[in-house]
């Protein structure tokens, strides 16, 4: 049976990325003076999971790197090594390299070995510095294919079709760990196969991996019965016959016992070993210290699985060593039965805990969107029902009307719940910033403390992804230009640590995200000078607000010199463009010497738009509310023509181009002159214009639908929506109007 693992790569990459994110955020949150053991464990687990996955899917370079990382982390979490800021640095860099490797593997390419080697040697240096590792342990670390530091034993019962090619099957299972065939018999038309498997993977991981290879009703994974001797602790030479005679249940060994027993000889020849239940009861990892000389002989090489580091010399040594250990080991085995019961119950507890964490499911976004569509329809149907029921006599139709009321409540609640599925907390965006700020502050030699406020504020998933870049840019800007160097701060009588705040909160139908710093603030004179230099037209006596907005102009950088932190790549103009493309806006507040605040305002969701319903020629159109600045009924003096054709409206001191909506959509207006209708001042990008409509019909939240699904793009329209009466209304594309103006 050929198993193409590549189709599962996507899931692995996604998971690895998640693990890396939590790895990083946990490391960042670690209090180095008093590290929380729970956190240390979680960090270790993240590294461990990545390693397991990488090994399973054959990304051996990643497995090798995580292996070293894991070893160090393991020592840290057991308190045998104190964590230092240097270690955190190296760990973070390792995390970066791993993320890079994930990205490269995702593209099907091979990562640059140099960058891997750099962090690898840094990790190894840490290991050496720790001084705990016996020198020859390095070899064990170099021996990368060993995926287990302390594997567990499982019993695997397979019920197979007799035609199954067991060799292939065993080879795929052997990827999970060291496999020994215990029994094979035919029963009816089934082939029963019993295997002993020794793997580092957890119970669940094993099951999952097995499910790739076999239908779930074909295999059964068991913890070996308590009291059965752990293989490595049993003498190869003295026990095989007795083991075999014990039959199926105890038959850890058949004609190839050596494989099982030698597979992972990671047992320390210490008397204390007797206290630890060997191998099998091991719920946690690392009960056993790797003993390198034995590790070397990992004879899985004999099985022809890609472990092949077999050294005949080492095997002999190991064997001699093992014979010497046997007496102790057997004593250990005697206690193992007892201890394993305890261990088992501990494992049960842990699994129950795991269940509590697994309360999320992964769902394709399109499914959620589809659900949202259906709910949208339901809302429309419900409002149509309500509309037709409103004419009924309440006395005659009490129950029907009560039902319709109930339906309305239920529909609204359902809609809210479905909408909330798309919403994810801001913490997913914010969580990357501790790292960004830390790295950047170090690079710039500034002391900065980052405060995160309102991480639980929720935002549409579509925004969250697009928000990262603009926000990163704003944060970099604040760090580079906003917060002063330590000396300057001290000279100005400020605390030497600068304060950067990322805050998110909800305000009406918007989510507001602020980047606040207590730095120098924007420099009005410098911005104005730069604007003049760039040939921007400047009005006399501009307000501060207007001056600040200048920095969003293209090609604007007030940085005295271009550093590698800012002044390259995306500019503030791109930030503003990105935010506007999400239907949001950016504003700045700044006070010289006290700092500045960049404020991003976004609508709550992409799928729903705050719209102004306008009428033109009896038809209804929707204008995005966030584009509308003002609406007015002009007097004749305000309306002028240019060349007898182009119309402009004078608003205060500006002449704005006047576009007639009825001309754009091609209908006959009810108002023959702008003075009879309404003129809306709208803004798109940095362009202002006036739009002439017949009437304002009201304001409403609308669900945005695209026209392309069954039709095609319509010029001048950005989409369509369904109104409360079930009719379709088109949404005007304001930026297209701007191009026309």
């Amino acid at each position, binding site marked *: 049976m050929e198993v193409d693992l590549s189709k599962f790569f996507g899931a692995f990459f996604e998971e690895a990325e998640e693990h890396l994110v939590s790895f990083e955020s946990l490391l960042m949150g670690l209090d180095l003076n008093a590290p929380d053991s729970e956190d240390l464990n979680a960090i270790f687990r993240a590294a461990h999971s990545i390693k397991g996955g990488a090994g399973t899917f054959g990304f051996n370079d990643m497995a090798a790197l995580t292996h070293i990382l894991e070893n160090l982390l393991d020592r840290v979490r057991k308190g045998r090594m104190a964590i230092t800021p240097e270690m955190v640095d190296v760990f973070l860099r390792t995390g970066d390299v791993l993320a890079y490797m994930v990205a490269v593997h995702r593209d099907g390419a091979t990562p640059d070995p140099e960058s891997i080697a750099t962090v690898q040697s840094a990790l190894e240096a840490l290991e050496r510095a720790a001084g705990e590792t016996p020198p020859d342990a390095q070899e064990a670390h170099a021996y990368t294919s060993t995926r287990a530091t302390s594997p567990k034993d499982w019993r695997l019962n397979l019920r197979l079709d007799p035609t199954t090619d067991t060799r292939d099957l065993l080879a795929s299972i052997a990827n999970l760990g060291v496999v020994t065939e215990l029994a094979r018999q035919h029963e009816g038309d089934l082939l029963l196969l019993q295997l002993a498997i020794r793997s580092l993977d957890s119970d669940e991981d094993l099951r999952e991996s097995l499910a790739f290879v076999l239908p779930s009703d074909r295999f059964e994974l068991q913890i070996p019965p308590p009291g059965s001797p752990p293989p490595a602790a049993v003498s190869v030479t003295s026990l095989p016959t007795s083991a075999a005679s014990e039959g199926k249940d105890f038959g850890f060994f058949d004609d190839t016992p050596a494989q099982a027993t030698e597979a992972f000889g990671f047992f320390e020849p210490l008397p204390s070993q007797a206290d630890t239940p060997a191998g099998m009861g091991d719920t946690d990892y690392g009960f056993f210290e790797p003993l390198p000389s034995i590790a070397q002989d990992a004879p899985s090489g004999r099985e022809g699985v890609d472990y092949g580091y077999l050294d005949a010399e080492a095997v002999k040594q190991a064997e001699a060593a093992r014979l010497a250990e046997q007496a102790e080991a057997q004593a250990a085995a005697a206690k193992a039965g007892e201890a394993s019961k305890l261990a088992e119950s501990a494992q049960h507890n842990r699994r129950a805990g795991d269940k509590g964490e697994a309360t999320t499911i992964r769902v394709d976004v399109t499914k959620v969107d589809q659900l949202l569509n259906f709910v949208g329809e339901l809302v429309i149907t419900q409002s149509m029902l309500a509309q037709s029921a409103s004419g009924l006599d309440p006395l005659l139709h009490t129950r029907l009307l009560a039902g319709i009321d109930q339906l309305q409540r239920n529909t609204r609640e359902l809609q809210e719940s479905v909408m909330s599925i798309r919403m994810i907390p801001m913490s997913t965006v914010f969580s990357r910033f501790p790292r960004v700020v830390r790295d950047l502050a170090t690079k710039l030699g500034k002391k900065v403390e980052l405060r995160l406020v309102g991480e639980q504020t929720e935002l549409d998933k579509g925004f969250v992804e697009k928000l990262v870049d603009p926000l990163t840019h704003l944060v970099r800007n604040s760090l580079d230009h906003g917060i002063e160097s330590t000396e300057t701060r001290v000279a100005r009588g400020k605390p030497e640590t600068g304060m950067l705040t990322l805050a998110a909160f909800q305000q009406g139908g918007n989510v507001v995200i602020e980047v606040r710093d207590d730095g120098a603030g924007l420099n009005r004179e410098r911005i104005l000078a730069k604007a003049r230099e760039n040939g921007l037209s400047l009005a006399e006596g501009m307000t501060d607000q207007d001056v600040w907005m200048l920095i969003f102009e293209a090609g604007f950088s007030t940085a005295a010199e271009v550093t590698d932190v800012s002044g390259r790549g995306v500019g503030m103009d791109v930030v503003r463009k990105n935010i506007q493309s999400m239907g949001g806006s950016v504003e700045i507040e700044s006070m010289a010497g006290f700092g500045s605040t960049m404020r991003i305002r976004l609508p709550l969701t992409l799928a729903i738009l705050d719209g102004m319903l306008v009428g033109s020629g009896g038809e209804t159109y929707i204008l995005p509310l966030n584009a509308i600045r003002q609406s007015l009924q002009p007097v004749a003096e305000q309306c002028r023509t240019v060349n007898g054709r182009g119309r402009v409206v004078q608003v205060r001191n500006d002449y704005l181009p006047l576009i007639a909506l009825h001309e*754009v959509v091609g209908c006959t207006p009810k108002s023959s002159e702008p003075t009879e209708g309404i003129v809306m001042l709208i803004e798109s990008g940095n362009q202002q214009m006036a739009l002439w409509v017949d009437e304002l019909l009201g304001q409403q939240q609308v669900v945005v639908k695209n026209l392309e*699904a*069954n*039709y*095609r793009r*319509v*010029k001048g329209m950005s989409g369509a929506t369904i109104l409360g009466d079930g009719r379709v209304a088109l949404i005007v594309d304001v930026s297209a109007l701007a191009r026309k103006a």
Partner: protein
Amino acid sequence: MEHNSNSREHLVFTLGEEEYAIDILKVQEIRGFEPPTRIANAPPFILGVINLRGAIVPITDLRVKFAIGEPSYGEFTVVIILNLAGRVVGAVVDGVSDVVALTDNIVQATPDFGAAVDTAYIVGLAPMDEHMLILVDIEKLMTGREMELVADAAASAA
């Protein structure tokens, strides 16, 4: 078709005096006419878009397209909702009259009308009692360039 006796169901509709037949598997549903929302700068035979259970569906009027009959819209006007390769499109016709099974061997080739009618979309003619049915390849017609229903067609027309 390999077997001449192959019989397939067709939906028969009328445009003015003429009777047309289309493959019934392309028909999603038949519903009454409701005034669609007009779309700016669309050709006259595209009446606009309607809300079909949450989907925005364009409505064409084949009477206008082929200049047959008088386009009038009332409570008996019928819209055939077609599902063509995942795209949903509505077509207004004068009436839907029947569902018939047509075997391929009764279908006759379309005579050459010259340039007056584009026969590219007409599969053939079939006698049915006293009438003549015009078999139309509705998918080819609706996704054709001149219907301007599909994006690339519109782009090349522009």
